[in-house]
């Protein structure tokens, strides 16, 4: 289903999702319950939509002031895959959302501020353009939107199709992590190769490397953007106290190398290392 289906973004991307064959069974838009939009029944609330249609995944296309509530509404209504595209959600809202989601352990949140996910030729939730993709064995997981498209295109152009492409989003406080997504790829029979596209900041790449270092059946290439980005103009020490030396491109690349994962220095190198 799609939350905010009648909005401009919601409408446009619902059509894109339908064009790929995604089974969009419901949408929400408070006050428009009972109407139909793009051939899809519209409900006032997610709980109403779930009750009527059995929807189990939701893409969220609502503005930042309403997106945190939309995520929690989806989780409380029993949605198990929540994909939040919205960019610009305040961090403290997301921290509260993350705590709320602890009460709904079967709900997985992707994003916010992410392009969503796509299984080429099958279905998608979010905004990843279908035409950069091609069906195949490579799992692709990324923190960056446009870099995902760039690498996806390059893979497709080289004949390396993708099983699923997952954009986890660029915000500091996210739902699914690299680690979570890699665990899912490990269990996915259609995936034999893996590309991880990280960036500076946080320790999610380090944690992913640690997981891969314990042994993986996937042939993996990692790429980190921001190698030459200067350290932010920090003020205060709190950040430094808790993060220490983690979070730099160097520490992330080193973590992947120590885990036996090939590291690409430019995106152009990824295809070669993956073969």
């Amino acid at each position, binding site marked *: 289903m799609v939350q905010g289906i009648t909005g401009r973004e919601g409408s446009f991307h619902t059509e894109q999702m339908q064009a790929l064959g995604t089974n969009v069974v419901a949408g929400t838009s408070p006050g428009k319950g009972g109407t139909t939009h793009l051939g899809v029944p519209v409900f006032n609330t997610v709980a109403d939509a779930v009750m009527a249609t059995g929807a189990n995944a939701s893409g969220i296309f609502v503005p930042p002031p309403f997106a945190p509530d939309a995520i929690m509404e989806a989780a409380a209504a029993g949605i198990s895959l929540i994909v939040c595209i919205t960019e610009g959600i305040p961090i*403290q809202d997301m*921290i509260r959302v993350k705590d709320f989601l602890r009460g709904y352990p079967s709900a997985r949140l992707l994003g916010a501020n992410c392009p969503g996910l796509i299984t080429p030729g099958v279905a998608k939730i979010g905004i990843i353009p279908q035409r950069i993709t091609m069906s195949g064995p490579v799992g692709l997981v990324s923190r960056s939107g446009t*870099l995902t498209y760039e690498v996806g295109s390059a893979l497709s152009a080289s004949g390396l199709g993708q099983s699923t492409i997952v954009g986890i989003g660029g915000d500091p406080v*996210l739902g699914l992590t690299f680690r979570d997504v890699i665990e899912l790829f490990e269990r996915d029979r259609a995936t034999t190769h893996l590309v991880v596209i990280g960036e500076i*900041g946080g320790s999610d790449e380090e944690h992913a490397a640690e997981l891969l270092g314990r042994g993986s059946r996937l042939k993996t290439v990692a790429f980190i953007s*921001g190698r030459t980005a200067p350290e932010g103009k920090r003020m205060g*020490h*709190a950040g430094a106290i808790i993060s220490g030396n983690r979070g730099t491109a160097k520490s992330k690349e080193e973590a992947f190398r120590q885990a036996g994962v090939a590291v690409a220095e430019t995106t152009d190198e990824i295809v070669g290392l993956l073969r």
Partner: protein
Amino acid sequence: MKLLEYQAKEVLSSLGIPIPPGVVARTPAEAVAGFEKLGPVAVKAQVPVGGRGKAGGIKLAKTADEARKAAEQIIGMDIKGFKVPLVYCEAALEIEREIYVGFTVDRDARANILLLSAKGGIDIEQVAEESPESIARLYPNPWRGPMDFELTQLVYDAGLGELARPLSAIIENLYRAIPELDALTAEINPLVVTKKGEVIAGDAKLEVDENAAWRHKDLEERYGGVVEGDPYEVEAKKRGLTYVSLDGEIGIIGNGAGLCMSTLDLVQRAGGRAANFCDIGGGAKAEVVENALAVILMNPRVKGVLMNVFGGITRGDEVAKGLVHARDNLKMKLPLVVRLSGTREEEGRKILKQNGIEPGANAWEAAQKIVELATMETPTPAAARPDLPAEEVTLEHPS
């Protein structure tokens, strides 16, 4: 949004945290007036960056003359790229001990973390590295906030039990900056215990979430107009751009933070240095491209511009048309290389070539090309650059 010390203290004081009396001074004469009102003062540079003490940005003044001299020396000084616009003259404290207290977002834990240490002061990062156990930590539940018993435990864990009451109250008030102001970081270092036993904020740092500005219009109105050091960042902020100044000579425009950062990496690999980071986001409308180009061209160090766009939904021909229009409007003479990929890339490249703009086949080639062109480039006459706004940039002080 990062607040200056005096602004952060105003805010913390409104949350119930004790601060020393102080006066903002934009001129040495105002610093003298501050001395006359307050007696011995610390004269402190107001810049949104740490390390000003070590850079000579804080001086103690025991006489009016010392206050004047300190202000003369500090106002206009450059601290880590920020030109000091004003000083804060604050009543000097008789320090018995210095405590560190602060919170920030712990990305890995997806939570806020409160930090408290009996070893406050300028060496706190060293303390964190050498004896991390001397910093007590607490992750408050974001809906409930810190519980009384958690604060008690934090204070005793930090070895500050004899100050349990004032510290618990101060930490509780400091934490209010999270639900009430969408603060991302707030820090009091040092939190001073005076010889008289008062507990009072010696310094204060506060950063609030710009994504939450719509919830805090008052804060934005009160402090958002205040201008930070780098003039290009200031101008970019006015135009609503995501822009960071760097110290190289190649201007960079990209869509998406990851793509933009990887473009910086490629320029460095090609032997050049980026003059900025500028992410124009998805969509890349003509107006945004023109704003980005305008700000980049204001910087006289810039010798060439590289634009790297991957069109997912954006159409390449439209980006190309917008760019040509912007270049012409701005009468841009500097080399410009564009890597355009994705939807309608062929059509876009054709438009660029027809208008004398060099398209790169891929990002790496584009990076090599702009570095090559920029190295050959001779300085452009100032007349060919857009000017910074004519009015002088001044700091507004909420009085």
